[in-house]
């Protein structure tokens, strides 16, 4: 990755984070701009997604990494679509977390975006689609940033203790990610969902504390107690049951994590060179 791509990645993620948190940020912007804030948020996230994808696109030009990304996207989207009737995004977190852990943060991020993109191709997109992409991407990327990912190689031979410590770490992360995902998805949509005039309505003029209180009431009623909890439970169960074996399967594929655009071997050697050691 070049320095420019890194910078682009960082800026795009910050923009997306700001757009998610727009209801809490608005009081800080000039009052003339406040009315435009919700629409700016809706417009900024898709732009941020495209920017991140442009920054990451060049990092997955290795054919095997790309093939892995494509096939895992299919698995994730299939899990998501299969789970539509029983509560939506639930089991897809298992795939995101395990893949992010095995192949790194950038891979996890892309997988999150692409899983949502693919299920949108299958079942339609809406103004919320880019937000879902970014939130799922963060779930995958976060799993890739957890500590202790690197004693790679002969995963099955790792002693049982290490294996279960890793599962416990990922399952705890799954719980955190499930509630955090619900919270950030509620945060940007809360003003739209509730509308004006209720006692938990978003108010640009109210204090941060009041707005936070209103938001917490909203998110508690909306998803924390229901969907987010189901999602947390599915993630823990899924990671506990299939985690070690799926991680072993992914790691055995020898996809280099964080693959760069470098090809495995130099292509610039002249055909004349005859002696070599491989």
């Amino acid at each position: 990755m070049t320095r420019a791509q890194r910078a682009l990645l960082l800026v795009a993620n910050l923009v997306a984070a700001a757009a998610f948190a727009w209801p809490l940020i608005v009081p800080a912007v000039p009052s003339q701009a406040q009315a435009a804030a919700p629409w700016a948020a809706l417009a900024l996230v898709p732009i941020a997604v495209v920017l991140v994808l442009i920054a990451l696109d060049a990092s997955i030009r290795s054919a095997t990494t790309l093939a892995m990304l494509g096939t895992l996207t299919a698995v994730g989207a299939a899990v998501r679509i299969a789970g539509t009737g029983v509560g939506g995004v639930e089991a897809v977190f298992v795939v995101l977390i395990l893949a992010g852990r095995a192949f790194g943060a950038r891979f996890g991020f892309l997988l999150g975006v692409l899983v949502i993109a693919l299920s949108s191709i299958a079942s339609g997109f809406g103004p919320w689609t880019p937000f879902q992409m970014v939130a799922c991407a963060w779930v995958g990327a976060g799993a890739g940033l957890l500590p202790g990912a690197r004693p790679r190689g002969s995963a099955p031979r790792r002693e049982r203790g290490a294996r279960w410590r890793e599962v416990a770490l990922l399952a705890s992360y799954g719980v955190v990610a499930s509630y955090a995902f619900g919270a950030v998805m509620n945060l940007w949509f809360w003003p739209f969902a509730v509308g004006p005039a209720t006692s938990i309505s978003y108010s640009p003029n109210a204090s941060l504390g009041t707005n936070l209180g209103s938001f917490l009431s909203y998110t508690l009623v909306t998803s924390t107690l229901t969907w987010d909890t189901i999602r947390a439970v599915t993630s823990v169960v899924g990671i506990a049951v299939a985690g070690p074996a799926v991680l072993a399967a992914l790691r055995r594929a020898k996809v280099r994590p964080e693959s760069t655009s470098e090809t495995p071997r130099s292509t610039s050697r002249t055909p004349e060179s005859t002696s070599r050691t491989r």
Partner: protein
Amino acid sequence: MRLRSGPVRAAALLALGFILVRLVYQALFRGLDRGGRVLVDLPSHRLPDPVDHVVLLGPITTQGITTAIVSALPIAAIILAFGVLNGVVDLAAVCARASRGGPLRSVAQALVIAWATFPGLVRSVTDVRRARRLRGERGAASLLVPVMERTVERAVALGASMEVRGFASSTGHAPDASGAGTSAVELRDVTLAHDGGWTLRADLTLPRGALVLLTGPTGSGKSTLLRALSGLHTAVDGGTLAGEARVLGVDRDVAPHATAALVGVVPQHPRLSFVAETVAAEIAFASAVQGASDAEVDARVARAAQRFDLEALLGTATSHLSAGQSHLVALAAATAHAPALVLVDEPLADLDLASRTRVVTALRELAADGTTVLVAEHRVAALREVADVELVVAADDGGARVVVADPGVAEVAPASAGPLDAVAPRDPVTGDPVLRAHDVTLAVGGRVLLSEASLDVAAGEIVAVTGDVGSGKTTLLNHLALPRRGTARVGGTDVATLRRRPRLRALALVPDASDDLLFRLTVAEECARADRRAGAAVGASLARFRAFAVLPDGEGPASDVAVRHPRDLSVGQRRLLVLAVQLAATPRVLLVDEPSRGLDPVAAAAVRRALRATAEAGTAVVIATHDVAFTALADRVLALEDARLVPRAVPALESVAKVRP
């Protein structure tokens, strides 16, 4: 531009739902108290400090409801607008377009792959579900893990298939191969090796424009030689190449994608390697990633489709192709950009006679046009007549594998297959049948495979069912393993009425794709799981597996085999492991589908010994096979022909050694 109504209708429902949800929130948090007539007067509750501004419930008035609905309309309109957008835009087409170039090429390509993977994924889930029923498992892990293993397998095959067609970061120019005087392939003192001591030597030159046949039994190293010539052996498989290797004058030291314009590759399992959703896009892939113009790509697709007679299939989804069709499509996809050398791995496996003829004709025509065609195949009869050169993987004086250009030399396998067996001939087993299947009628897709057939097998007897590809052997075994009521009885009990554990004790099937049954992290865990599931003694399955894997010279598997990952075992050891797992409950009947698939002679002999030992322990064994060495193992042979099971003579073991596999 056409508007599809489905997405619009879905969006309308969603918009309506949004308005209703807003009404619920407003009612719950005192938002519907806006004057007008009071409809319901709910008592309101104020929450305690620090959120004392939050008030629950409260009165609901007419005007409150109208205001709430009106305030929700802008968002509802946006949702509806997105629905119309969904109805107009074809996202799949947008992705296919973006994957041909531009800043989001890789991401769009990943989506195209994902889209094309969907149907295969559904198929793997179906297969794995059946596999876990066969093992008597139910949990999520026994489904998820094999599906993920298959996904990884597809990803690796796909990555290789994209690599050899030129997919890479830099669309760098291909190495100069203009030297028309150079040979197509030039191997000087080359040794190919995998870790674990496996080696294959080759020292040969292939002229341009020849149709070259590379023979040798399964597992002898034909694929390795092909993958070495395409560059995959060193770049993807992690193998090594010592010596001097040139392909069309280019040093084989370069990455596979660098020679994509010169070398076309037809993989052994084309269905795993398809990149695109439709046949047309699949054929276009190599040309498109190598930077040909759209017009040129279209022209090449049309030409290739005409040559391989695929015009009618251009719009078909790659996932809907039959085995024969997919080989032809893979051939077209590998040759549309007119590479000078084409490498074809086992094109005739799994094909019926008509498809074989078409593939052979296509290969001959390619060579006639000046392309060098190297075909690895152990079904030599059809190809030997048309080949200009024949290469054989043979054993040299020291027993090492070497590729020689002399059809007179004995092949490496049959020489050693006989002694490896160490299975003495025995008297035919007779007795009261333990498995009785009567009036079995099977039909798939309207075609009758078997009509009112009967099969009785005695305890300790081995019955081989033979027949052409697609004749219904696999369907028959699957049907016996998970039968409908009244079709199969074991020891007088209808198998369909048995619960899980009694069924495991009555009958077990080792399916063709036997790896689908494995889902634990180590061999020991896999065996322990089987023991528990079957109610067998602790360690019984592991002991059985070790006994199966011991070679006639007493050499057993490495001592650490129990802690290895099942998929790190060789194909042969894996098959023996599945055999041990399925025998955990000591079933009275064992069914085995294609026990020799993908095995080298040594491994196949080990499987034969294991089957023989199982029969001698009193289990009735039914194998579906077209491998003569396995048929020779049987007490009785039944051929599945014209929807009937016809008794055949058992081939003698002596003749097996002479038959070329």
